[in-house]
């Protein structure tokens, strides 16, 4: 089979799931005839019609709420945010109504909210966000953020089939930049399981989304230049978090570097650090360190964006310090 991009993998998942289950339908701004701002849903309306591929008014709370209502009745809505930054407008609906529906009212809420996330694309402060941390502290939600094309496909399929609401973050830098051959058949990747993206024994980098690639590149460089064997863990799912995989790598390498693209304070790295403390403190030979964005709104100009976001060189330099600790 031919290689397809991360974006095409997502599209393939949508086609396959709409085909498999007539309850699956899509909503979002400009996803129909236009195929979405990034063309993820291209061709979907032509095939499934405008009842199952619905162009919405500009009202994120409105159509995310509508997705919840439809999901109570057995539908499986997949909602696109034109940019994930606009998920903030549906924050109340997601955290208060949707996340609690099953718990407080025994209402199933199987829906997916997906959209282009992340920076490194000169998108400026409102087209580059990584909002995962703002939802991490909402029991009832699941959060997925794939780094590879096959995970993007397999996890989206799993998200659509999941009986709970899933936030599915897609990294827009990866949309057309990475390619992969899809596993044959009905490729579903279990939600909640991390992936060892690279085996290593001296040091672990725990990360997810686009920075998985930064970490892999740093690992290669560290191997070549320093002879260090670096393990890279791609979390893939942030909620529920795969404690087993995290603990396993800590016990193996005893040194942990957490990398994420999101701002530092209040980012996901904190939660990971706390969990490692609780479950594997004795195995730590060095402090858990973080490489993240600086605590500023993400600026637009290339020199500024480059300075604020974590880069390979940052990972390399911190990893060296950690290895030498």
């Amino acid at each position: 089979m031919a290689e397809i991009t991360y974006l095409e993998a997502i599209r393939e998942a949508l086609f396959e799931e709409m085909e498999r289950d007539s309850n699956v339908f899509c909503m979002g701004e400009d996803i129909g005839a236009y195929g979405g701002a990034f063309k993820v849903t291209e061709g979907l309306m032509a095939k499934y019609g405008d009842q199952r591929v619905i162009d919405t008014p500009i009202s994120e709370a409105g159509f995310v709420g509508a997705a919840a209502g439809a999901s109570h009745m057995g539908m499986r809505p997949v909602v696109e945010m034109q940019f994930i930054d606009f998920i903030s407008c549906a924050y109340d609906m997601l955290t208060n109504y949707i996340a609690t529906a099953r718990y407080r009212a025994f209402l199933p809420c199987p829906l997916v909210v997906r959209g282009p996330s992340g920076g490194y694309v000169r998108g400026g402060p409102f087209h580059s966000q990584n909002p995962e941390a703002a939802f991490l502290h909402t029991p009832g939600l699941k959060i997925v953020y794939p780094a590879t094309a096959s995970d993007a496909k397999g996890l989206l399929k799993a998200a659509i089939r999941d009986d709970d609401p899933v936030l599915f973050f897609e990294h827009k830098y990866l949309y057309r930049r990475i390619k992969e051959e899809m596993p044959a058949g009905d490729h579903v990747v279990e939600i909640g399981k991390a992936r060892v993206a690279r085996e290593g024994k001296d040091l672990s980098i725990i990360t997810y989304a686009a920075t998985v690639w930064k970490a892999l590149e740093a690992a290669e460089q560290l191997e070549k230049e320093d002879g260090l064997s670096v393990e890279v863990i791609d979390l893939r799912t942030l909620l529920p978090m795969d404690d087993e995989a995290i603990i396993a790598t800590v016990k193996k390498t005893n040194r942990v570097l957490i990398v994420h693209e999101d701002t530092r304070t209040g980012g996901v790295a904190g939660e990971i650090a706390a969990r490692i403390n609780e479950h594997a403190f004795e195995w730590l030979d060095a402090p858990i360190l973080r490489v993240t964005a600086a605590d500023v709104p993400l600026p637009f100009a290339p020199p500024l964006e480059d300075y604020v976001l974590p880069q390979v060189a940052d990972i390399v330099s911190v990893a060296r310090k950690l290895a030498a600790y």
Partner: protein
Amino acid sequence: MATSTTSRAPSRPSDALTLERKVELYYWMRLTRSLEERLVNLYRQTKVVGGLFRSLGQEADAVGSAFALDRTKGDILSPLIRNLGSMLVQGAEPLEIIRQYMAKGDSPTRGRELNIHFGDTVRGFVGQISHLGDMVPVMAGVTLSFKLRNEKRVGMVYVGDGATSTGAFHEGINFAAVQRCPLVVIVENNGYAYSTPNSKQSAVKEFKDKAMAYGIPGIRADGNDVLATYDVTRDAVDRARRGEGVTLIELMTYRRKGHAEHDNQSYVPDGEIERWEKQNDPINRYVRVLLEELQVEKKELDAIDARVISEIDAATDLAEQSPAAEPTDALHGVYAVPAQVEPLWYRAGVRSAVEKNERAAGWGTFNG
């Protein structure tokens, strides 16, 4: 779209109701009022956990509108805090309500949520959350699913005058209007949002005019006239069922008891409450219609009153015997999978903290 004001529609759907059904309307209103009165007693006995929200004086708008739905067709509504009457019409039981207010372990939410915040999509109501306006998008989606599946079902959502100011109301009704969802939006105009009079809520004179912003019909009716309420709502329900889309109905009523039991209503002009009570009590008004226009005998209504009390008595007795919520049940059902959240490691095996661990008096009294 044109908006119109009507107290009773010229061709009245209620003319088609049998006398039995018309008497049933009285039953639901009386049940609503008496059940709330019972809850007031329980509240004073501190058996109610949390606040108590009354719909005194609004029973007709709740009951008359919900009565226009057809449960046999699978119609669904989403109530607000003052729609106990709507829920009863849709099949909620007094026992459930009392258990819920007492936060019992066998209450509809097993103690997770308050008062009438619960739902049952089979009987036809979707549980609200506190955040006002949010149920409008949700019901837009419920009714969208009817449309997508070609089911001839109708949905109804209630919002207060106050809640029309929320962005969620706007986004939800606009979405439903564009999609021509089979949805009826009831704006209960009871004069206040908590202490805020309508004049500080919106510069419109009539909330029905909000329909103009969505290209849908807006109708105002007397919400204290249960038949008039039934009439306009029934027309809107039929319209929705025919696939003609959303209607906004403004029901004029009055909130006689303040926002909740603790509200002293100091902000209400003198005499206003008394005026509504004397001149415009929806039950009294309907009793007159029943006795004078429909020739129902007084003793038939008395019998209903007695039946209502005995039903409520029975429900109260049962509810009082209900068990408290089970502490570790708190960990169940956040997700479908896993069905249960792991207890925190230091809590494994611990029941309620208050029962077993907590020193009762000390907390928070430290003064430093």
